[in-house]
């Protein structure tokens, strides 16, 4: 007897995942610093069913010195999404990208990148 398939058709959802949003922003940093300071995203599985993405600043000229800017965590549903250590939670993509824009263009982040640039040029 042939086995019955209860799964139906499966395709990936056409959404911008938090990971692809973070990767887009990571790729945008290098060209602004002539690749002296770059950004990358590392993904790992967390406890339970969560996925954690770590957004990092990397300085190749300083033996790949790496500074973790922030980490986000979400489950298979993508949202809600939590910024780890800050306990902020966003329910959708718009809320997340608004926060991300503020975070990346903040004085604190700019100062960090400037300091790393100064360090590598000294």
């Amino acid at each position, binding site marked *: 007897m042939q086995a019955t398939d209860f799964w139906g058709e499966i395709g990936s959802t056409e959404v911008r995942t938090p990971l692809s949003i973070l990767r887009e922003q990571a790729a945008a940093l290098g060209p602004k610093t002539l690749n002296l300071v770059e950004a990358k995203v590392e993904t790992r599985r967390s406890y339970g069913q969560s996925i954690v993405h770590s957004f990092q600043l990397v300085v*190749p000229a300083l033996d790949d010195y790496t500074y973790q800017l922030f980490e986000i965590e979400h489950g298979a549903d993508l949202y809600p999404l939590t910024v780890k250590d800050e306990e902020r939670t966003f329910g959708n993509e718009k809320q997340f990208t608004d926060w991300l824009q503020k975070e990346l263009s903040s004085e604190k982040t700019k100062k960090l990148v400037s300091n790393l640039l100064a360090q590598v040029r000294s």
Partner: protein
Amino acid sequence: MFWNINGKPLADLIAELAHVHGIQVIILAECTITVPDLLLALNRRKATRFHYCAGRQPCAITIYSRFSSSFLTPVFESKRVSIRRLSLPAQSEILLAGVHLPSKRYMNPDSQAGECAALARQIAHEEDRVGHRRTVLVGDFNVDPFENGMVSAEGLHSVMTRQIAKRGVRRVQGRDYRLFYNPMWNHFGDARGLTAGSYFYDSAEHVNYFWHLFDQVLIRPELAERFDPSHLKIVTSFAGRALARTDGRPDAAVGSDHLPVVFELNF
């Protein structure tokens, strides 16, 4: 592109050369230019975005690439050798090794052959670990293509034609040795012009070759099949700038005492 720049501040020249030849990966030996200085020169043009590919430890080889360094990860490094895994999206992974072996000033030919044999064993070990033999080995070997270290089965075992290299391995006394194709053999002599190698050294000795091809590219047969030897050049000039003197010898006053080698590889 591979270039032994002899500790010279040639950032602008390297950047111009990389631009004119559309270079994707720059491998340098004897590079004392700081990473920021070279990146500033390489990325001065808006469309060009080179990345520094940091190693895990200090090495005589410095690498920059037009793609993210995350695609070129170190698998083995020593003072004189850097073996990297190059895995670009939608392309077969290859091993790219850069080397700068000891100079004839500090090592006799037998010891140099020993270094080549150690390098050959290391490469075979890394090939076994990654599970393929798509390897390109580039650098200043300080040994000519005809010397034991480059030719011997125990050494780098490199041969002058793709047809022979195609055998893959050669059995000597019951042991199998992997072959490399060495396209540099095509670059000896003056058929192309006055430059008959990549390095010139004149000494008052009975045996004097004058011209040397210490700077070489060795390719495993798996990749050599798709390699066109006419796409490997020893660069003597580009964009109206001469790197060689009128007698064909490297012009160390303008560039380095070695000439750069540029090549194209499909994988």
